C-alpha cells in the first residue's frame, strides 16, 4: 500500500504525534520541567522546575515527611501525590531521608511535598496537550 493510501497518513495528522506526546509526558513525569524543555518551552520549563523542586526543597528544609505507603487511605493518596514529583522523590528516598516527625514544620512540609507532586502531574498533562497539538 502506498503512503497516500494509508489510513491516518501524515498529511491528515495533527502536528503532534502520539509518540511525541508520550515522550514529553514521560519526561515531564520523570523530571519536573523536562517535558516542556523537550517541547522547546525553555523559559516555562525552567519556571516549572524551580516551582516544583522549590516546593520539594521547602518540605526538606522544614523537616517534612517523604510519604510512603502507610496505613489509611489518606496516607496512600498522600504518597501517590508526593510520588508525582518523579525522580527527585525517589532520589531523596534513596538518600535515606524520612523527615523529622518532631519538627515543628512537619505538617507544613507535608502540604508542600503533596502540592509539588500534584503540580508536576498537571505539568505531565500540560506537556501531553502541547505535544499532541491541543494547546499552544
Amino acid at each position, binding site marked *: 500500500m502506498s503512503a497516500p493510501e494509508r489510513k491516518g497518513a501524515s498529511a491528515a495528522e495533527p502536528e503532534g504525534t502520539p509518540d511525541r506526546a508520550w515522550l514529553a509526558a514521560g519526561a515531564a513525569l520523570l523530571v519536573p520541567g523536562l517535558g516542556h524543555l523537550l517541547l522547546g518551552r525553555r523559559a516555562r520549563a525552567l519556571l516549572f522546575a524551580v516551582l516544583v523542586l522549590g516546593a520539594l526543597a*521547602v518540605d526538606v528544609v*522544614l523537616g517534612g515527611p517523604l510519604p510512603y505507603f502507610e496505613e489509611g487511605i489518606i496516607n496512600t493518596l498522600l504518597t501517590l501525590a508526593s510520588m508525582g514529583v518523579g525522580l527527585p522523590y525517589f532520589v531523596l528516598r534513596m538518600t535515606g531521608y524520612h523527615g523529622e516527625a518532631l519538627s515543628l514544620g512537619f505538617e507544613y512540609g507535608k502540604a508542600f511535598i503533596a*502540592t509539588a507532586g500534584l503540580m508536576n502531574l498537571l505539568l505531565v498533562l500540560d506537556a501531553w496537550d502541547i505535544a499532541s497539538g491541543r494547546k499552544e
Partner: protein
Amino acid sequence: MPSHFLLMVLYALLVSVFFTALWRRERRDQVRLFLQLFLGLVVGALVVAWLMFPFPSGPPTPAP
C-alpha cells in the same frame, strides 16, 4: 522555622505563580489571575482563621 503566616504566604505564592504560568499567556491576563489567586488564598485564609477564632480546637498539645 519561619512563622506560620510566612509559610502560608510562600505556599500561596508558589501555587499562584504555577497556575498563572500554566493557564495564561498574555501578560495582562497573567497579572490579573496571579492577583486573584494570591489574594484569594491569603485573604481567604485570614478570613477563615478569623471566623474560626471563637472555636478553638482544645487545649494546646504539650511539647514532646
